[in-house]
């Protein structure tokens, strides 16, 4: 006689069916598609040298000045959303392990995707905040009193999840019925491998980075197409995309970056734009200009569809082949395989209409790879901000741009104040 409901579904029932269990994983991609790419690109772009702000709100001004308050809402958003995605991944993993009714193929696929999502979220967390707590269950009793662990431990967790995902995930892309589809909107084995290659690079495991990136580069379905088709839906370069599901938008990055008016949020930093060679196709094709009287504002124009979209032409590209070339180039250079590294970087340069580099020493080659990364992957999931920190060039590059507020401790965001207040076992990053 007690209550019942129609529109809610209890966890046990959810994981008793292939379709409903799959719907739980799909929901995470829908949620991510709802602005997550822009959240990351916007905050990390302001923190690095990519973007400048026109906003008069304190959170934006602080980000741009690298003077972030512990109450900064962007910091809280990055922290909170990641842990919410991690919760969902953990909930799915627990649901899968307790369910006895799922098809084995579905169970394997979903487990791989959940671990992939968890790794993806920890990768963002560790790069924003440094040491973070590792949460691998849904037990709020444990998770509310959890301590931060070192970045090394976080990376170990990420590698463990990704290695597992590589094993579990199929090579093809799946639709909700777990059948093959041409839409690259759920992670497959290669997405996990590609993210693993990036993680290898970030922790300096050069050989493994080379191995994993090579594995992806060698898959026939991934090629470097014409520069104007890179970000289209189901682009042959895409390794993992988020399907466009938000009405009025193709992608959040397109919707929010493209300027059709005097900016009040962000635009590209003029010095960032002028760092391109004039004949670089990426400067001409991936950067837009809005002219307002005598003033020119630049904006990322990788995605061409702004707000008010009625047909879907573009999906948010999360992982793509060009990065794998850049990873391999760097890994090879670090292992002193300079000709191979040059070949990889020239592949990227040629696609951008630039000529081959040649005859560079290791150090100069690594510098060139960093510049190529900057020009290839700008405003894509924090790559520039993460690279500046990873290559320990943040102080040198940002200090002159952000004076007088820049301090070396600004390389990490503060742990949100509310988190410190709610969990006394969390300690703040230095400088906050």
């Amino acid at each position: 006689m007690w209550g019942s409901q129609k529109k809610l579904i209890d966890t046990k029932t959810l994981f008793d069916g292939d379709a409903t269990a799959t719907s739980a994983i799909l929901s995470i991609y829908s949620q991510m598609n709802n602005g997550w790419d822009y959240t990351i690109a916007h905050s990390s772009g302001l923190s690095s040298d990519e973007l400048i702000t026109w906003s008069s709100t304190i959170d934006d001004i602080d980000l741009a000045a690298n003077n972030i308050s512990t109450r900064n809402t962007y910091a809280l958003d990055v922290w909170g959303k990641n842990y919410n995605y991690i919760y969902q991944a953990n909930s799915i993993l627990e649901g899968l392990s307790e369910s006895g009714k799922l098809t084995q193929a579905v169970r394997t696929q979903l487990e791989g995707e959940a671990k992939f999502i968890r790794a993806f979220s920890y990768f963002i967390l560790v790069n924003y905040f440094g040491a973070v707590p590792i949460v691998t269950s849904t037990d709020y009793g444990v998770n509310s009193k959890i301590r931060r662990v070192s970045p090394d431990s976080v990376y170990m967790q990420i590698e463990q999840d990704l290695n597992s995902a590589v094993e579990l995930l199929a090579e093809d892309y799946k639709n909700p019925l777990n059948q093959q589809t041409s839409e690259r909107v759920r992670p497959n084995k290669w997405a996990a491998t590609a993210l693993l290659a990036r993680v290898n690079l970030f922790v300096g495991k050069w050989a493994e980075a080379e191995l994993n990136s090579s594995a992806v580069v060698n898959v026939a379905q991934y090629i470097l197409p014409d520069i104007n088709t890179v970000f289209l839906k189901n682009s042959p370069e895409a390794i993992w995309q988020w399907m466009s599901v938000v009405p009025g938008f193709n992608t959040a990055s397109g919707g929010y970056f493209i300027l059709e008016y005097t900016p009040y949020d962000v635009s590209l930093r003029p010095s960032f734009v002028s760092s391109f060679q004039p004949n670089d196709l990426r400067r001409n094709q991936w950067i837009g200009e809005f002219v307002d009287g005598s003033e020119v504002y630049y904006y990322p124009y990788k995605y061409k569809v702004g707000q008010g979209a009625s047909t879907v032409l573009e999906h948010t590209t999360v992982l793509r082949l060009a990065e794998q070339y850049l990873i391999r180039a760097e890994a090879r250079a670090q292992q002193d395989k300079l000709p191979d590294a040059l070949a990889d970087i020239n592949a990227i340069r040629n696609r951008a209409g630039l000529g081959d580099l040649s005859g560079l020493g290791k150090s100069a080659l690594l510098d060139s790879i960093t510049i190529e990364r900057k020009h290839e992957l700008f405003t894509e999931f924090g790559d520039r901000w993460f690279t500046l920190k990873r290559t320990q060039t943040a102080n040198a590059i940002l200090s002159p741009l952000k004076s007088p507020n820049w301090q070396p401790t600004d390389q990490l965001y503060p742990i949100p104040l509310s988190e410190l207040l709610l969990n006394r076992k969390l300690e703040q990053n230095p400088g906050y």
Partner: protein
Amino acid sequence: MHLLPKLYAMPRSWLSFLVFFISMLSASGQTFNLSVDREPLEKVFLLIEKQSDYSFIYTRETLAKTKPVTFTVRNETLERVLNRCFDNQPLTYLVDDKHIVVKQEVVKSAAVPLQNITGRVRNEIGEPVAGVTVTIRGGGRSTATDVNGNFALEGSPLNAVLVISGAEIETQELVIKSSAEISIVVKARINVLDETMVIAYGKTTRRYATGTLSKVKAEEIARQPVSNPLSALSGRVSGLQIRQVSGAPGTGITVQIRGRNSIDNGIEPLYLVDGIPYPSGTHTGDFGGGANSYLSPLDNINPADIESIEVLKDADVTAIYGSRGANGVILITTKKGIAGKTHGSLKVYSGAGAATRKLKLLNTGEYLAMRREAFKNDNVAPSMGNAPDLLRWDTTRFTDWQDLLIGNTMRASEVTGTLSGGTEQTQFLLSSTYRKETTVFPGSFGAQKISGSGSINHRSADKKFTVGFSTTFLTNDNFLPRSDLTTGLLLPPDAPVIYNSDGSLNWESSTWDNPFGAVMQTFKTKTQNLNANLNLRYRISENLEIAFTGGLGQLWVTEKFLYPASSLDPVYGPGGETAAFGTSKTTTLIGEPQISYFKKIGEHKLEFLAGATMQHTGYSGLFVVGRGYPNDESLNSLAAASTVRVNADLDTRYRYLGFFGRTGYNFRNKYLATFTIRRDGSSRYGPANRFKNFGSAGAGWIFTEEKWIGKNTVLSFGKIKASAGYAANDQIGDYKYLDLYSSYYLPYQGQSTFYPTQLFNSQFGWEKIRKLEMGIDLGFFRDRVLLSANYYYNTTTNQLVSYTLPATTGFSGVLKNLPAVIRNTGLELELSSTIIKNRNWNWNASFNITFPQNKLVSFQDFESSTYTNFYALGKPLSIARVFTNTGVDPATGLYSFYDYNKDGLINGSEDKHVILNTGQQCFGGMQQTLSYKKFTFSLVAQLAIQRTVPSFLNRFPRPGARFNQPRAVLERWKADGDYSNIQRFTAVNSDALNAYSNYLESAAAYENGSYLRLKNLYISYQIGSSKLKQAGISGLNVFAEASNLVTITKYRGLDPETLQSLPPVKVVAVGIQFTF
């Protein structure tokens, strides 16, 4: 001893001996022998006095027009003798002990035919009233009514005045017009102590109640031009704290009875309309409401339909509501028909209003100077991007945005018609109201309500069976702008023109947010409320009665939120136009069988009540958003949308089962006791914690009934009472004990998606409140002055809270029981007095005041909990932890703060050292009702003492930003070495921004928000004339009424009650009421 002025008593000392002698002879049987011939009356009186010890009292003028008398009597009684004297004289007399008072006759009875009259006296519910005295004025003839209320009087003159009086009824007079049987309806005498008050499943009086409750009557509600009946309670009831959230029509009102018992779950009282639980909080759906607010469900009850509102406070009256009684109970009882002649009334009023206050802001010149100074301070050049107000806009413009956006005149008008009547057995009532109200916003916003109600009551001829059925229906169309336009007062005074020459909105190249975009984005809510209630009673014997009450309450809500393309800056491209549609329905079904038994054993009176409650409440809601319309005209049609998305699709059910019992005991109307028990089950709890027991005990001692206290001319009534009991709170929402996924609004790969909605806890149990109370009720000067003092001491344990968790858990909290104890104590004083009551004047005054205290008493492992930064042990729940502002640093011009932990940073909880209480220290009210002849005047004033509320500064971003500012900022720091309380202007400087945001979290950003408000003013004049009566109109009342006319406060913002929202509206209305 003589009552009349200019008095002449017969000099009779010289006669005393003789009189004594004659008395001995003849006056022992009081007979007279007298013979007079054309003697003046005065002389006859003398003769009578000689024969007896009676004396006459009269004035010379009285006898001026008398005729000489002639008669002879032998051994006749005094009465016969006097009749001879006064026959055909314009006089009347009264025998009072040994005095015979002679007066001029008031009613001319000359040449009036005499007749016999009969009649029947009944009370308002049609029952016969026995033992009432019926007297013909002037004539001295009188009789009393029999058990059936019947009376008969012989020889009454036509047009004589009948006076109906008695100990327990209001004295009434009427003119006899015909010989037909007269039907008289009398009102029970209003000794406030004996007024009926509604309680759970019964009634009580202030005299015999062992619990604490307050009543607000229909006539008090009727004097206020309000739409929401809760507004009419402001300042009237002790212990009841009411806060209007916004001045927009229909929006929320928060109500708290005896303080906040719970850290965060359901602090609303339980509302019952004729016994049917009524939704509290809000009925606004998934899209939020208009004007950045939410709608109050109580706005869908017509104040004109309400007979009384009882506010139940202590354990004695609330424990019987068990799991829902923790926060007190508000009983709304609707009007019922009255037996007697069918009568009707029509009331019409209309008024106008405006926002209570305005702020003083910068003009264009001052504003531009501020902005330029800000950029100069920041060492940043203004650019087209960050300073369009300086570089792009026409800087010669000035607009008073406050005036434009909230400075309009609102209008309200209302018409109510009622018809009522019936026989002793069956009574009916029909009533209907139409109300229309506009707003102070620009545009055609407002609310329109139409309501109808009907009630029928019937009693069988043998009086054993009664049935009552009543129903009310109300439809409410509320139409508001999307946002509260009050925020528009922040717009720069040089902001651009609103419209382009083609009539479209001007966005000035996307450099401002045109507030008229929000005016075009509308929120329409249509609410329909149906309440139907059935009440069946059967009296098996004199002592035993069974009853069944049941009802249906239904609230349908349809919402329509339109976001037309024309309201949006076109630069963002097409496709932004949106129309959101919501429909929801809340249905409550309740059935309550009851049995009651009354037993009198000697002087012991015992009452027993037992019953059960079965309740089912279902909620369903569907919220859909359409986007991409071909044009704005088609927004209303979901079919025209290119994409349709389901925002929420909800279906929840709440079931509730309770058993209750109550025993009342009364010994010699002196010693009183009440015991209640309840066993409740609620579907909101997990299977292990579903049922729980509650109960209370209350006692009273009317010490003025004790013999030893004797008859006291000052203290006429005195009662000491106390009660104790347990209740609980189940306002936690449904299904919280389940681990649930719900559907996410964005599908993926064409498949619907599910996400986890909450952390779950299957083990949470009831939040329990223990209520203790002591009180004293005193009546002075025959109960003309009544004083009540109550002290309550309520303790809530096992706090059920949405326990705030760090985001590492994936969510912000989980529902959980906390080992915390919250104590609410308070002293409530109510004083009411009839200062003057006579034929022409009637002056009643009442006062109430409450001193509430709220305290977090204990909290196990508080220091390691997530609550340390929001609460403090030993402090109220309503606190703010704030920084200490140490002024403006004369060197930097920035606000500086005291660094308590000396870590060089102003940050975290440790520097927020000061704790402020943001709640109310005291609240109360005053009512005065003064009537003189046909004039009535009344006022209600409301008082709130709240010394630290968020200051008006919280509305404003930092001075120097692209927002207007209060004029006070002109006193800012300007140059090195300046001492000022206001930091330097800043446009985009990060340090200055942080200093300002810390300032808003410092003690300096709180201010005294105490206020005294003239809540209501009412003046009326009753016109009654024979011409009107011939036209069938028995009464005509002309009145003027006003709300929120004057507010006295030091608060610097718009209004200390609504704080940052639209201030309350002050309304003045005039009206007229006909009764026929």
